[in-house]
């Protein structure tokens, strides 16, 4: 009992990575029955071999992630998403489709929202990457993060890191006066565009939410946009 209490406390504090949490949940038998049949150490192995022992033709890549200079020796085939998740232990960015169709892997590269699943890490040498982990200032959440909480902008939460990174960069695009498909007056570019609900929906169309939290996502973004 005391053991599970500790676990609950850890989870509440977000002091543990999701993987460690799953591992412990499984280990103490508090998880689903399915875990009994899984070799926990194998399933949630700490560091994959390709990380500890990169192939001979691996390349060195230096990139700035959330303000910290990172240097990895990496197989040329590795996507930025896998680099973040498997090599740099930043599992906030999510792998949904891995084919550029869902937006769950959206990160901000050199100030612009992009898909980390369709980006090779070797293409990012010298670039600045911001992930969901790099948005809060200590305990103070980014306004978009707070708004997603306040408006219930998610259900399962899997698409949320991508939605949030996308929304932050999207609002910058609107501030810059960038048009979308539904913008009325294309021929004149004016800064600080006021976005309608239709505009927000169109601009966020690259981020799918299978739970269908769209109305609340629009509300969350609108609140920050109107501030």
């Amino acid at each position: 009992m005391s053991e599970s209490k500790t676990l609950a406390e850890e989870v509440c504090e977000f002091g543990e990575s999701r993987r460690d949490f799953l591992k412990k949940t499984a280990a103490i038998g508090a998880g689903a029955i399915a875990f009994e049949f899984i070799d926990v150490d194998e399933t949630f192995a700490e560091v994959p071999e390709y990380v500890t022992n990169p192939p001979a033709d691996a390349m060195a890549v230096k990139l700035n992630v959330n303000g910290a200079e990172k240097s990895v020796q990496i197989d040329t085939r590795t996507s930025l998403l896998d680099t973040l998740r498997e090599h740099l232990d930043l599992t906030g960015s999510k792998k949904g489709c891995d084919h550029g169709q869902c937006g769950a892997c959206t990160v901000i590269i050199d100030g612009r929202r992009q898909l980390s699943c369709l980006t090779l890490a070797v293409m990012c040498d010298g670039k600045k990457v911001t992930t969901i982990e790099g948005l809060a200032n200590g305990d103070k959440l980014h306004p978009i993060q707070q708004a997603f909480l306040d408006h219930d902008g998610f259900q399962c939460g899997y698409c949320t890191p991508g939605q949030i990174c996308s929304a932050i960069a999207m609002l910058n695009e609107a501030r810059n006066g960038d048009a979308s498909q539904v913008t009325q007056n294309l021929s004149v570019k004016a800064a600080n565009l006021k976005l309608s609900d239709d505009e927000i929906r169109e601009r966020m169309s690259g981020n799918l939410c299978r739970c269908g939290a769209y109305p609340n996502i629009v509300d969350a973004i609108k609140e920050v946009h109107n501030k």
Partner: protein
Amino acid sequence: MKPFTFSRATNQTEAIKLLQANGKFIAGGTNIVDLMKEGVEKPSQLVDIQRLPISTIQANKSGGVSLGALAKNSDTANHPLIRSKYPLLTQAILAGASGQIRNMATNGGNLLQRTRCVYFYDLAMPCNKREAGSGCGALEGLNKNHAILGWSDTCVATFPSDMSVALAALDAKVKVLGKDGKERMIDFVNFHRLPEKDATKDNNLNAGDLITSIELPKTGLPTKSHYLKIRNRASYAFALVSVAVIYEWKGNMIMNPRIALGGVAHKPWRAFEAEKFLAGKTATEENFKQAAEIALKDAKALSQNAYKITLAKRAIVRVLKMANGKG
């Protein structure tokens, strides 16, 4: 994904020199990385051209605008010169993909995307585009999204780009640097090709060619234009049918009209005969309907896509009205 070597080029000369026989250039990567994951593209080498100094958008000598091959789609759509003088291009670019993908995709790469035909992507299926001589799965298979114009028994795939439909209507030219170091210009309407007996080639580039810019001609004023895209959902989907239309407006008459269709053929499809019919005509629904009939008179449906012929005709009438401010 097959292993490949990766090299970075800093200028055009270096890029064409570095490229090996089975190598590919990579810039935005949005299409080729996906195709490499699927095993459809298997280059043994990638040459990263992101650092080449060909990403500017500026006025060109002929009074038009030069689009650097490496300018991002989103920067191109939102450049003040494009939004004010070529809103048709802005509309077409913004109708494609998502905000994230437009931030990654380059102008040169947009022209070089491959078809989204499901048989092209599915290695277990025959596809003459992926593997010459293996057959065409779509010809008698799932072909509701496929071509109604210019197809052959070899390939019934469509070309997916929205931007290219507008570029075809704008009579753009593509500037290319050859492996021999010589530059040449290709008219946009001749850049992409029809499948005929060889579907493996989407366009008329030679091996090792590097696109350096897209040149837009001077616009006649006052010009009316519109891009209409019809698809299964309101955003982030490929076109079933799209139409780009642009014409000059002189004394209530349509002058120099250009109509290009997307989603209907192996290349952006210019409706030259319909354009000829509309030149010098007034903007009436009757004229638009006749133009639409002429544009689709050679269309041939596959087993599942006869709807596209009707859809394309109606889209042409509607986009002509929209361009005229009466949509």
